[in-house]
C-alpha cells in the first residue's frame, strides 16, 4: 500500500515536472500571411500567398536538431457528391457515386521536408497533414477500399484543377528561426474563410501550432453578379434579356447604317 502511494506520488511529480518542463521549453510560433484578404476581381487569375513567420525557442537557444515546419492552407469545406464514370455499353457515363460531408474546396500543404519523414501516420491523420490524410467524412456506407478509390479520385481531380496542392520541401527555414512558404491559390477557388495553419514539428511530434485566417471574397461587380444570380433570379434574367436584345439591335442598327452608307 505504501509502495503504491509512493509510486503514485512519484508519477504525479514526474508528470508535473514534465509539464512544467514542456511549458518552459515549448517553442512558440509567430506566423503571418502576406494577405489577410484576397479579392476576386474581373482580372483574377489566381494568387500566390506567402506564409511566413518566426520560431521562438525558449531562451533563444536553437535546439541541436533543427525543427521542421509544415504549413497548410485550407478552404471552406463542402458537402459533395463525387461521381465516377465507367464505360457502359461503349460510352462513359456516371455510374458510381459517394457522398463526402466535409471535402475542403481548397487544400494546399507545404513542408520543409517530405511529410512522411516528419511525422508518423497517426499524427498526420490527427492534424490532416497531407492530401491522403483529409477527413472527408464519407456519408454513404461503403467499404474502405471504395472510399479510398474515391478519395484518390477527388485528390487527382482537384490537383489538376490546382485546388489541391502538395509541395513537400518548399518551406524555407532561415537560420533555424525564420520560415517562409509560397502557396498558389487557383482561380477556381470559392469564396469564404480560409485558414493558414503552421505546425512546428520535431522528432515526429507537433510542438506548436498557430492559425491565421484569410478571407477570400468577390468584390464589387463580381460580388454583385454572384448575389443577384443567386438571390434575385428574376431581375438577373431580365437584365440578361435586356442586354442581349439591346446588343443585338444595336449591332443590327450599326450594320444597317454602314450598309446604307456603303450602298
Amino acid at each position, binding site marked *: 500500500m505504501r509502495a503504491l502511494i509512493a509510486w503514485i506520488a512519484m508519477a504525479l511529480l514526474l508528470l508535473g515536472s514534465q509539464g512544467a518542463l514542456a511549458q518552459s521549453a515549448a517553442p512558440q510560433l509567430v506566423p503571418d500571411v502576406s494577405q489577410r484578404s484576397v479579392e476576386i476581381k474581373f482580372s483574377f487569375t489566381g494568387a500566390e500567398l506567402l506564409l511566413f513567420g518566426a520560431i521562438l525557442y525558449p531562451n533563444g537557444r536553437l535546439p541541436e536538431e533543427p525543427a521542421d515546419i509544415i504549413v497548410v492552407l485550407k478552404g471552406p469545406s463542402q458537402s459533395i457528391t463525387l461521381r465516377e464514370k465507367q464505360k457502359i455499353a461503349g460510352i462513359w457515363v456516371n455510374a458510381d457515386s459517394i457522398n463526402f460531408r466535409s471535402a475542403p474546396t481548397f487544400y494546399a500543404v507545404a513542408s520543409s521536408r517530405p511529410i512522411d519523414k516528419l511525422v508518423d501516420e497517426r499524427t498526420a491523420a490527427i492534424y490532416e497533414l497531407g492530401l491522403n490524410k483529409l477527413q472527408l467524412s464519407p456519408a454513404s456506407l461503403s467499404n474502405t477500399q471504395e472510399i479510398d478509390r474515391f478519395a484518390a479520385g477527388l485528390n487527382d481531380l482537384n490537383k489538376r484543377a490546382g485546388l489541391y496542392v502538395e509541395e513537400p520541401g518548399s518551406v524555407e527555414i532561415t537560420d533555424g528561426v525564420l520560415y517562409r512558404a509560397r502557396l498558389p491559390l487557383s482561380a477556381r477557388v470559392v469564396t469564404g474563410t480560409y485558414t493558414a495553419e503552421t505546425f512546428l514539428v520535431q522528432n515526429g511530434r507537433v510542438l506548436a501550432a498557430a492559425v491565421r485566417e484569410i478571407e477570400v471574397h468577390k468584390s464589387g461587380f463580381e460580388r454583385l453578379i454572384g448575389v443577384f444570380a443567386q438571390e434575385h433570379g428574376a431581375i438577373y434574367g431580365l437584365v*440578361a434579356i435586356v442586354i442581349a436584345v439591346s446588343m443585338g439591335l444595336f449591332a443590327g442598327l450599326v450594320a444597317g447604317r454602314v450598309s446604307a452608307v456603303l450602298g
Partner: protein
Amino acid sequence: MDIYLPIANLSVNALVIIGLGGVVGLLSGMFGVGGGFLTTPLLIFYGIPPTVAAASSATQVMGASVSSVVSHLARKTVDVRMGAVMVVGGMIGAGIGTIIFRLLTRLGQIDTAIALLYVAMLGSIGLLMAHEAIRALIMARRGVRPPARKRRHHPLVAALPLRWRFYPSGLYISPLAPLLLGIFSGILTMLMGVGGGFVLVPAMIYILGMATQPVIGTSLFQILFVTMVTTMAHSLTTHAVDLVLAFLLLIGSVTGAQIGGRISMSVRPEYLRVLLALIVLVVAIRMALGLGWRPDEIYTVALQ
C-alpha cells in the same frame, strides 16, 4: 486577356470567347440558324461547366437572332400567328425542360444526356441536310431545276382536332401541331442551349408543310422568344447564366452575324447548305467520339 467569369467561377481568355462568339455569329448570319448548337459544345470543350455553357449560350442565341427577327418582321416574312403558337409551346417546353434538367442533374446524368441528345439530334438532322443539299447541288450542276416538292403536311397533322387558318404559311391546320413542335424545341433549348432552328426549319417544311418563304423568319421569331423564356428559367432555377460569359459571346456573335449575313448574299445557297450540313455532322461526330473516348476526368464533383 484573362477575365474572371463570376458564375462559372473560373477565368478565361476573353479574346478566345469573343472569337468563338464571332465564328458562331458568322455561321448564324450565313445560314440563318441561331448557332447555339455550336456554342454549347465549344464552350464545354473549352472547360466551361456544361450547365453554365447551355444557359449562357441560350442568352447569346437570343442576342444573335434579334436583329434578324426585326428585319424579317419589317419584310413581313414572319407568320406571327404560327410563331405565337410555337412560342406558347416553347414556354411549356421550357417548363418541362426545367423539370427534366433537375431530374437528370439529381441523377448525375445531365452531361451524358446533353451529349447523347447532341449526337442524336445533330447526327440525324445533319445527315438529312447533307442528303438534301448534295442532291440539290448535283441537280444545279447538271442544270436541272429540282422538281417542285409537293407541299403537304404530314398525315398525323391532319388527324389533330381543331383547325386554324395560318395565312402567311398557306395552311389550314390544327394549332396543336405547331404547339407540339414548339414544346419539343422548348425542351431542346432548355437542355442543349440551342435555339432549335435546325430542328424547327425542317420540321416546319416537312411536317407542317409550310410555304418556304415565312419559314426562316417564323423560326427565328420563335427562337427569340423561347431563348428569352429559357434565359429566365435558367436564371430562376439553375442560376447558371453567366452574364460576363454571355456578354463576351454576344460581342463576337452580333458582329459576326452581320458579316455572315453579308456573305450569305454572295454565296450560292446550295453550297451554303452543304457546308452547314458538314459542320453539323462534324460537331455530332466529335460529340460521339467524346462519349466513347476515355474522358480526362473520370470523377466529377457536385454540390449537395
